[in-house]
């Protein structure tokens, strides 16, 4: 009884809207005034003929791989070091977690300056830093690089989220009972083997949660990218393309199609996780 209002609200505002979006995506309402008649999956297949769409999908994949991989690796490493009992752990933990408190927009504005693409005399930001410390060869175009620009775009995201991943992993590490490690050590495991065969398998649920949280943030990425580079093709991703389709091209059906693809991409991450956790709950 108590939860029924929220169930109704979610049914209307989440699933109802989702359904409405999918229905819009299957019409030919390509401007704001026309009625739009049903055209089936035409928009969904037609969009793959557009060069910009494949480009933005590629960008999203590069961004996701670098961001999720980078944040997991860095977060794990930080948690590992913390767990080894660094001095001043509390302070360091707070420092690494702080970026989480900042919005992606603020992060983006700062990193836009840090990742300025000026080289040589015109270098500012990180390129300037490289010059000062004598590493001119590391200067590059950052997010304006045609092939790896999106990897540069993932750097601020990694910076922002790796502290959070660290916190997740640290909780995971702490959740591994000491007697299990002791038992492994008594059985003649080296420290590395303890981690490899005892701790890591027990961290699997944590890794999976982190993967899903980061994965869905990454596929929906919009604010960070707009704050760093605006609505430029060189850093186009589906969410930005959707915004342009709706508000600049005034093409609701196209925007809805892109939105539908984003939902589908996110659900590829989320649904297996839900199934898995439901099964686990049932088992216990």
């Amino acid at each position, binding site marked *: 009884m108590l939860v029924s209002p929220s169930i109704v609200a979610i049914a209307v505002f989440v699933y109802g809207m989702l359904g409405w979006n999918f229905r819009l995506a299957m019409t030919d309402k*390509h*401007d*704001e*005034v026309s009625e739009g008649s049903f055209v089936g999956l035409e928009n969904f297949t037609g969009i793959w003929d557009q*060069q*910009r769409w494949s*480009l933005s999908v590629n960008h999203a994949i590069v961004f996701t791989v670098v961001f999720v991989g980078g944040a997991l690796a860095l977060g794990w490493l930080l948690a590992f070091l913390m767990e080894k009992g660094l001095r001043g752990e509390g302070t360091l933990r707070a420092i690494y977690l702080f970026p989480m408190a900042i919005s992606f927009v603020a992060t983006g504005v700062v990193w*836009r300056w840090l990742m*300025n*693409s*000026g*080289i040589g*005399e*015109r270098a500012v930001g990180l390129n300037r830093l490289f010059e000062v410390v004598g590493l001119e060869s590391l200067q590059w*175009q950052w997010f*304006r690089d*045609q092939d790896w620009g999106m990897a540069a775009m993932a750097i601020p995201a990694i910076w922002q989220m790796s502290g959070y991943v660290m916190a997740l992993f640290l909780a995971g590490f702490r959740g591994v009972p000491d007697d299990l490690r002791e038992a492994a050590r008594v059985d003649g495991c080296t420290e590395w083997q303890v981690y490899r065969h005892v701790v890591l398998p027990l961290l699997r649920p944590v890794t999976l949660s982190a993967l899903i949280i980061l994965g869905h943030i990454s596929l929906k990425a919009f604010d960070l990218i707009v704050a760093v*580079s*605006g609505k*430029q*093709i*060189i850093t*186009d991703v589906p969410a930005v393309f959707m915004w*342009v389709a709706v*508000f*600049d*091209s*005034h*093409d609701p059906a196209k925007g809805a199609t892109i939105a539908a693809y984003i939902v589908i991409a996110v659900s590829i991450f989320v649904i297996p996780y839900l199934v898995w956790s439901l099964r686990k709950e049932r088992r216990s």
Partner: protein
Amino acid sequence: MRRRWMAAVAVTVAGMLTLTACGGGGEEGAAQSPQADAAKKVEVFSWWTGPGEADGLQAMKEIFEKQNPGLTFFDAAVAGGSGDKARALLTSKLQADTPPDTFQGHAGAELQGYIKAGDLEPVNFLYDELKLKDVFPQQLVDQISVGGQIYSVPVNIHRSNVMWFNPGVLKEAGVTEVPGTIEEFVAALEKVKQAGKVPLSIGSEWTAVHLLESVLLGSLGTEAYNQLWTANSDWSGPAMTKALNDFKTIMSYAGDPQDDWQPAAKQVADGEAAFNIMGDWAYGYFHNPPDGGLGKKSKTDFDWAPSPGTGGTFMWLSDSFTLPKGAPNRDGAVAWLKVAASKEGQDAFNPKKGSIPARKDADTSLYTDYLADALKDWGSNKLAGSIQHGVTVNDAWRTAINEAVGLFQQSKDVAALQTALADAAKNSGQ
């Protein structure tokens, strides 16, 4: 014990809610009683919040309130350059059928979306009443008419085809004459490149589209350019191929893309780059004292000329005000449009904003330096409309052109660009 606490908190919160509800109701009642107040308010929606433009709006507001003692001006400006955010908000207001009394829009095809949706009322009656067709250039009236109807009143004119350059850098590179044609321009770019400076500075992707419109105009000529927006346009022909190849050649001399147009213009002012093609709002940025501008001296630190091949043609864009259907205070809006169209209003606004009036009878003594040049050309030149700034193409078409140019910047494929531009013209629904 804990229960009782919870109950106390709940009662307090509930009580506070009721109290605030009463308070809200009371205030509303108070505000409603002088009903006349609401009828006097005229809500003017714009994106003029920056230095210069906000001052200009203020000056027009003073004239408006002096001429209409019964009306009060309500400034509903939304910050954000070129009105990106303002227009997103405006869309939601119009869709909810709660339009402002009048709103700013680029004159020309950019208004088509509103016209199609039936949001705008034609203002031909004002043009007749105020005899505006006699004071605006005939070509301007032609270029903003849609099927004989006019939907807005232009307040100011900006020029898009301006080439800004640094005389010192040109001298150093051995460029003695200001390039007048595209061939001369390319030769000059090459000389600057040899001298080790950035030949042409460029900003984010939209500035490349801005450059493209100047190159198209320069390469195709004014007549062929103006024909691109009519039924007998030729986007696939050899003349267009040549123009796009010119664009490719010129782009090959561009420096690293900057964040936006200001840093790109600054490269010219600082002597890092030789040329920049940008609209004449750059003049204020070069000329105004810091912090609003760079405080540079015109003709010595920076100079200007029509972009190559476009001498004798004024590529214009204009901010204008409209009359939305269902405006709460239509009479007030019409009074505002009259001020916006008047000589007095335009001469108060434009010197502050750094643009020229759309009217031909402006007081020339108010416009000095660059603006004097622009005003002279406005009265005598042939006119062409800007692409990027909403004169010749509607939003969908402009977005498609931006997309094509953005993709071209990566692929450098002229044939693909031409196909994309031809498709954009075909699918624009304009």
